[in-house]
């Protein structure tokens, strides 16, 4: 059932794209057919892959850092009621600021290059991961804790067997959101003041007014992001049936 709907959606989007192309013409858009061809060609082009590697490298490092720091912050802050109460407005405020305005600061601290990109991507991911993880712990029903005591579990057993399982779905939601945002952050970092990477390629294509290039790059990025997100969403649904269907990153708090 779901597959049919998704296929229909893709058909609708492609049709809309095609119609838009008919309306606007070659100058402003590239047709779906041409774009897909260009994308395929790009994937086969040897010069494309170094940039992809650069972006992926930056992204993976950024995501790893975001995961580590985000989970660490979130889980510890969520453990105590007071720290959670103190931290939440701070995290929510951090969530809503246009982090791109902090990019110059990061460039000044890390200098231009990979470390800055990684840091920039990481700060995009840290906030949602920690926010969701923190709330996941805070939302654990007291009933679970009481059950653990009745069953006479040790603190570490309580943590791993009960607390983690109860909090897992929401933590995974945070990781999913963090993934997307880290990717966005990494790309964004490359769009400004970088010399390599997919973001840089995008900006280069824009300045050279190469429609086909712009659109095929965008297409590849969209496909990549959407596919991974769909995969993580499926994982989330396995863990908890009512998991994040339609909440955007800022939907909480």
């Amino acid at each position: 059932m779901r597959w049919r709907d998704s296929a229909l959606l893709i058909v609708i989007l492609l049709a809309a794209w095609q119609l838009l192309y008919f309306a606007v013409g070659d100058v402003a858009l590239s047709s779906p057919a041409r774009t897909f061809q260009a994308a395929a060609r790009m994937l086969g082009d040897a010069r494309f892959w170094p940039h992809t590697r650069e972006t992926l490298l930056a992204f993976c490092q950024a995501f790893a850092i975001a995961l580590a720091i985000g989970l660490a912050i979130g889980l510890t802050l969520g453990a105590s009621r007071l720290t959670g109460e103190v931290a939440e407005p701070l995290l929510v405020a951090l969530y809503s600021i246009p982090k791109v305005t902090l990019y110059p600061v990061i460039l000044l601290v890390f200098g231009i290059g990979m470390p800055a990109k990684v840091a920039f991507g990481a700060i995009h991911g840290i906030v949602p991961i920690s926010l969701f993880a923190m709330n996941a712990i805070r939302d654990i029903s007291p009933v679970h804790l009481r059950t653990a005591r009745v069953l006479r579990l040790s603190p570490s057993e309580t943590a791993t067997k009960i607390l983690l399982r109860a909090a897992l779905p929401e933590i995974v939601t945070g990781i999913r959101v963090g993934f997307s945002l880290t990717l966005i952050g990494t790309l964004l970092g490359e769009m400004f003041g970088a010399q390599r990477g997919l973001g840089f390629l995008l900006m280069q294509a824009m300045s050279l007014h190469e429609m086909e290039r712009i659109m095929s790059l965008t297409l590849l990025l969209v496909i990549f992001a959407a596919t991974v997100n769909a995969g993580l969403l499926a994982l989330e649904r396995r863990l908890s049936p009512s998991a994040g269907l339609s909440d955007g990153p800022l939907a909480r708090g």
Partner: protein
Amino acid sequence: MSKADLIRLAVIVFLTGMLEALCRTGIIPTITAIPPSAMVEALFKILASGKFNQDIAVTLRNVSVAITAAMLVGIVLGTLLQSLPAVRRIFDPLFATYYAVPMYAFYPLLIVVLGLGDLPQIAIGFLLAVVAVLLNTLNGLDRVPPVLLKTAQVHRLGLIRTALKVRLPFAAPYIFTGFKLAVAYSFIGVIGAEFITSNRGIGYEIAFAYNNFDNRVMYPMILLVLMVVITVNMSLHHWEKRLMERRLR
């Protein structure tokens, strides 16, 4: 002020103090960062001189346009979709994936299509915000209790008046959540876009100042953006809570 509020304030004061000390003692060199006190001072001077008033006005105007457009389109489409469940089901995966896609990747495309004026930035702000409004409108409309719809029937209201007089008023607090998000996203979209490529606006000025090693302009402007965004978002957040409380249902 609760205990949590006090601790939070203390943390912020402490961190700011640390930053100030590190800057003043030269551990953080001026080419990297200027002390917070200097930032505030420079900000006042800049605002007083009116040098960047035009940029500020442009950014605020673009953000407002993006928000308004997002609210109008989001609410109308949301209301429409809610009454067409089959169509809604088809677009569900789109909404679920929407915020995972790097919207900024469309920015070059928008620039080529819409030109180098303000439109691409407004467009990005709009694109980021509109789905949040739509989803929250859907959420609110989903929650209308059937008994209220029956009441509308008994009052013989018809489809449009039911939507305007019963469904949307009920969903209003949830739509307000959408508004809160639209504001946040519009700021992020517009300022981010200005930063990447534009020729005016606060984001542009920050990027310009950075490229010219002008920390005395860059940091105050960053501070201004942060202050405006945080203040606006927090007030909306507070307001939202009050609205929800009044309902209690």
